[in-house]
């Protein structure tokens, strides 16, 4: 059976991961099990991907209806937390996980707080009373370890100006500049789920890597988890574009002191040394406002919220007018104090 459930050894109820204690806990009798101590039930048996066509709940026997990417969910009939083992084994076995640190209630509170802080969002949105759903989801990420060998060659100038007599002299010194740099990056995250928008996931960073744990399936109990849609090789170009600005900024930092710099050669050789498949915690918030659905994502550890909220034209206009008016008044006052006319 490729469906794994977590039954309480005391009372037989379904156990869930508790974000506050970080343990597998039983809602019925209160038993709490440390996850690090228990051996992953997934490892007892090995499964092949795509082995099962249908999944049945071990508790009630109902069909478990899921997306093809889902690897953990709850039974829609009896609510038991189930893990679809064949989607977390073999090639698809995650090596790391960051568990949730924020519970559903905390996530909702944090989201409401975030909505209240919106400066240009409509008033009706700020009350945050139209939350359609909050779903805790483990999103598949690749954490890349990258080694970069960089060689740059360029032309730099240093400029000095001075005046002598009636002339202003501009003295430009030209230099041939060469740098060889080794630049290594650890755990650069790239989301591997097709469903998740990249720009949303990128803004959720940083994830606290101190909380990174060896993967153990009970962490998923009670949450939804996805399996990766793209492997580490398919996403390699994306991680390269992601670190490109970091590399450029590092190169810039090594040629300080030049007034201008133009590169004739910039060789960046990026090698993928290692990529860890990790599941990172994200609260997905679906919200209805004016008959339009909005999707927000919240970092399940830090509580950082990202996503495009609706923008109130009136508030934008008010801020614009207010700032412009105050600036104009300030400038007028300064000019008036210096003796210029007020109008």
């Amino acid at each position, binding site marked *: 059976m490729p469906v794994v459930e977590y039954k309480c050894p005391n009372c037989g109820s379904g156990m869930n991961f508790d974000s506050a204690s970080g343990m597998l806990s039983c809602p019925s009798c209160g038993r709490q099990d440390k996850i690090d101590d228990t051996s992953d039930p997934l490892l007892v048996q090995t499964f092949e991907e795509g082995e099962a066509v249908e999944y049945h709940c071990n508790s009630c026997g109902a069909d478990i209806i899921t997306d093809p990417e889902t690897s953990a969910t709850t039974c829609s009939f009896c609510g038991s937390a189930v893990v679809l083992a064949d989607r977390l084994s073999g090639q698809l076995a995650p090596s790391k996980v960051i568990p949730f640190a924020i519970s559903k209630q905390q996530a909702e509170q944090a989201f409401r707080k975030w909505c209240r802080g*919106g400066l*240009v969002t409509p008033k009706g949105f700020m009350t945050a009373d139209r939350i359609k759903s909050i779903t805790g989801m483990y999103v598949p990420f690749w954490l890349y370890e990258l080694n970069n060998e960089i060689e740059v060659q360029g032309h730099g100038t240093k400029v000095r100006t001075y*005046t002598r007599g*009636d*002339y*202003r*002299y*501009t*003295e*430009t*010194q*030209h*230099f*041939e*500049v*060469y*740098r*060889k*740099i*080794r*630049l*290594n*990056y*650890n*755990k*650069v995250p790239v989301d591997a789920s097709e469903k998740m928008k990249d720009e949303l996931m990128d*803004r*959720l*960073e*940083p994830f606290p890597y101190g909380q990174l744990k060896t993967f153990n399936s009970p962490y998923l109990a009670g949450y939804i988890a996805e399996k990766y849609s793209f492997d580490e090789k398919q996403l390699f170009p994306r991680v390269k574009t992601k*670190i490109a600005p*970091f*590399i450029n*900024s*590092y190169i810039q930092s*090594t040629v300080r002191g030049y007034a201008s710099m133009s590169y004739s050669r910039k060789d960046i050789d990026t090698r993928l040394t290692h990529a860890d498949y990790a599941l990172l915690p994200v609260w997905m918030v679906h919200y209805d406002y004016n008959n339009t659905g909005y999707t927000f994502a919240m970092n399940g550890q830090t509580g*950082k*919220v*990202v*996503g495009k*909220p609706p*923008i109130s034209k009136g508030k*934008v206009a008010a*801020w*614009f*007018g*207010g*700032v*412009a008016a105050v*600036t*104009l008044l300030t*400038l007028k006052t*300064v*000019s008036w*104090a*210096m*003796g*210029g*006319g007020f*109008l």
Partner: protein
Amino acid sequence: MRRSSLTAMLLLLIGLLVLPASGLAADKQLIFDEAGLLSPEEVQELNALANQLGAERQTDFIIITSSNTENKDVAMITNDFYDENLPGENAAILTMDMRNRQVDLGGFYLAEEYLDNSRLDKIRNGITPALSAGNYADAFREFLKESHRYMGYEPGFNPDNILFQTWFQVAVSLALGGLVVSVMVFRSGGRVTINRQTYEDSGSSGVLAHRDTYLRTTTTKTKIPRNNGGGGGGGGGGMTRGGHSRSGSRGSF
């Protein structure tokens, strides 16, 4: 009876005191066109303008044109005129030496403070083209108006500072408003809080080799532009022989 006659007497006395004074103020001669550069109508018009603007700044705006038969230095003409006629007064004087085609602008007391050398330079540079072209009345009118305008700005500031321009103030306000709003809208969706150091393994990263080879030096020179209105000139304050400090700007036209 006694009271009303006393009132009448008083009124008469006040009238006698006030009327000639105000009449004098209106008639105060401020244009001394000894070289005959202006028509009588122009003299009248400029005199009226000088009186009106001067009253607002408590300063005598004076214009002297001279054929300079004694061949005195133009600044000396200004200084001697001041010492003779209005020692200790607030005055801004424009002197034309038609013999040597020199013009001198001087500020005394309040006008020295408000019309410092650099401000007088600006005014002189502004009117020199008109002087060279022989449009004396236009140049003098400009001198009166600009001196009056500049005296409205506190000393030490550049009166032509772009900060004083309304269009500039409006442009800055709108730009700042737009910037603030764009940042707000842009950041409403959450912002990127990672930088290049977030994932960098600084322990194993670094510059392995570097070379900075000096190639050559190129030097360019540009002439520093001088504000030489009509050719030759410059500023300078100083003292009159009567011991009055002045600001100044002089040049040829």
